[in-house]
Structure formats: C-alpha cells, structure tokens
C-alpha cells in the first residue's frame, strides 16, 4: 500500500500531500498524521474526492487508510 508520512508536519501540508497522492494513486493509500484535526482535515479531503477512508489511532497519532478508487 502506498504510504504518505505526514507526521510532524503542520497544516495544510498533510492535506496537500494527500491531494497529491490521490492524484497519482488509484489504489489504497495510508496517510499518517500526528494531530486529531489533521486526521479530520485529511478525511474531508478524501471525501471531497469521492473516496472513502477508515481512521485508526496509532502510537504517535492517526492512520487514515484511503480505499481504492471505485
């Protein structure tokens, strides 16, 4: 699975990296972020592209797993 490591970055970088990744990757993508609001922003970005995702808490933040494009 393609991975975007946006841990430690500040807004809007996690969203910018997610945007970029979704443009080039139709398959599943895992995005790692540090803060809860970054997780929410990444989720919004994913939904805005008409894709779905599932988020889980990790040791040092959150992982948002974006489902493959339909």
């Amino acid at each position, binding site marked *: 699975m393609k991975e975007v490591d946006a841990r430690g970055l*500040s*807004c*809007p970088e996690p*969203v910018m990296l997610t*945007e970029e990744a979704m443009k080039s990757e139709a398959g599943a993508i895992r995005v790692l972020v540090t803060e809860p*609001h970054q997780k*929410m922003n990444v*989720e*919004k*970005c994913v939904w805005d592209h008409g894709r779905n995702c599932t988020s889980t808490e990790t040791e040092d933040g959150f992982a948002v797993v974006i489902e493959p494009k339909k």
Partner: protein
Amino acid sequence: MNEEIRLTQFAKHGGCAAKIGPDTLSRVLGRLPKFSDPDLIVGFETSDDAAVYKITDDVAVIQTLDFFTPVADDPYTFGQVAAANALSDVYAMGGEPKIALNIVCFPGDLDPDILGEILRGGAEKVREAGAVLVGGHSIQDDEPKYGLSVAGLVHPDRVYKNFGCEKGDVLILTKQLGSGIVNTAVKAQLASEESEREVIRVMTTLNKKAKETAADFTVHACTDVTGFGLLGHCSEMADAGGAVIELGVEGIAFMHGAKEYAEMGLIPGGAYRNQKHVSRLLDTGDVSEVYVDLLSDPQTSGGLLFAVPENEAEDLLRAFERADLGTKVSVVGRVLESGTDKPGIRLCDKVEIK
C-alpha cells in the same frame, strides 16, 4: 529586497489562528489575582476586547495590545493586516484610536528592509485611523511577529461591551467570514487569485467606518470577530448576557471559495479548538457540517459584530451600504432570549427578520 522570501513560511500558525485556545486561556487566567478599581469600566472578566478606564465623567481611555505571526507573504501587507487587527479592538469598544506603539519580533539574519516594509504598512493604517504612531519595542526572534499597542478614547457612557444583547436583537457582522480557511488555502497554493485578493482586502480594511456608522444607532453589544471565530465570539456574547442566539447560515456572507476550501479539508487547527470550546452551548440542528467549520474559522482582522434592536436593523444595514465599507455586511442571526441561565447558540438555515 530578497523577493524569494515568503513570510508565511516562518509562521507555524498565521494571524489570529496563532491565538492560544480559549480553553487553555480561561484555565490560566482564572489563576491570576483579581484586580478591581471603581474607574475600571471593562476588565477581563467578560473576555472583552480591551481594558477601559474612566478618567473623567466624559473621557475614558481604552488600552489594547495585539500582535501575531505573518498572515501574508508580502511584508507591507502583513504590516497593514496586523495594524488593522490591533486598531480594531479600540473600534470594538466604541472608541477612537489615538496613540499606537509598534511591537516587533524579527530574525537577526533576515533583510532589515523586510522589517521596514512591515512597519511602513502598519504606519499607514495608523495614519488612516487618525492616530499617531510613536515608536515601540523590538526584539530578535526566529519567527517574525508584528502588532500594535493602541490607546484610544471613548465617552464612558458610550462604551461598547460584548455583553448586554437583548431578546429580539438582530446580529449584524460587517465583514465576510473565511480568512483562516482562505489563508490556509493560500498557504497550500490551492486558493484562486480572486479569493487571495479578497482575503487581503478584507483583512486590511479598518473597522473605522463600520464603528462610525453604528454611532448613530442603538448598540446593545459589540465585539470584533477574530481568533475564536464567529461561534466563539457569539458564545462570549451569549455567556456574558445569558442569551440564546440563533445563527442563520444561509444569510451569512463568506469569502469567495471559503466553503469549497473547507470541504477540501483546508481548515486551520484553531477552528477545531474553537468548536470544542463552544460545543457545550452549540446546537447545530440540521445544518451541514461545513457551516460549523466556517463559523468556527479563526478570523484575522475580522469585522464588528453588532447586536442592535430589531426596529433599527434595516436602517443600520442601509447606513452601512451608504458608508461603502468595502466589505460584505450581513445579518448573521438574532437573539432569541436574554438574561436566562441557559445561554446557547442554535444554527438554522435562515433567520426571519420583521
């Protein structure tokens, strides 16, 4: 001057989004000793915009301080925004700015001409406000910061407070919302030119004309909408006056692109902090989530929020139109109840005004 430098890249949080969250602030400020003085008209108990101290029966002095990290890449623009934002606290108390002092933090290794431009932008706004700029204080810091300490004057009987709104009042906001979100989109290089121009125009506009226009009307409460977003500042108004406020999202003016950028997840962290802070008061009804994000968006150099009696609202709106503020004025909501022990904010699509 080095044209490659983008000032906003020095700032982790830009503008009023850099504000320490309201939850943290109230916890820390609650531990400070209480000061009292019979001539202190407004202190910090009600989270108002500035301190107001009565000198004589006809004159009170307003004292305020505001500064922040870059919200614009262009130093001159940043100076203008920071100064307009600091001067606004005086307008929000109903006063006229008289004396301003610069407060500056600037990296030792950055071109001093950049600092010169920041200060020039600030000075220009002070001049436009009709006040005098008389020096200030500067220190070296890795992250540039700029703002003003402003002293203004007001008649003690005509001080605008953030509490005192009454049942039936109409809430009018003098600038469109969205600066935190649009600035985040600018930082992500995803904002349209139109949005970028609009956010700069709105942030650099003084609240002078808005305050002067409202002087001919009954104002029950007033505050400027800044870092806590419309919801945060409404919650202060509601809390302080035991009011129940209804906000109609479809009537509220937003900056071009703000809704679209919020849906893309270009939302500053401060918006989520603001949402958390107002959650105990907030009933979002059936309103779509994006509006909650827009209404909690931290504003930099936002407009004045006036609570005025319903029978004067239409005339005030017309007076704002004649005054040509250069920003979008809108009716954001109304006060359903006041003086209750259950303050609250309800969101709906539209508020009806007679």
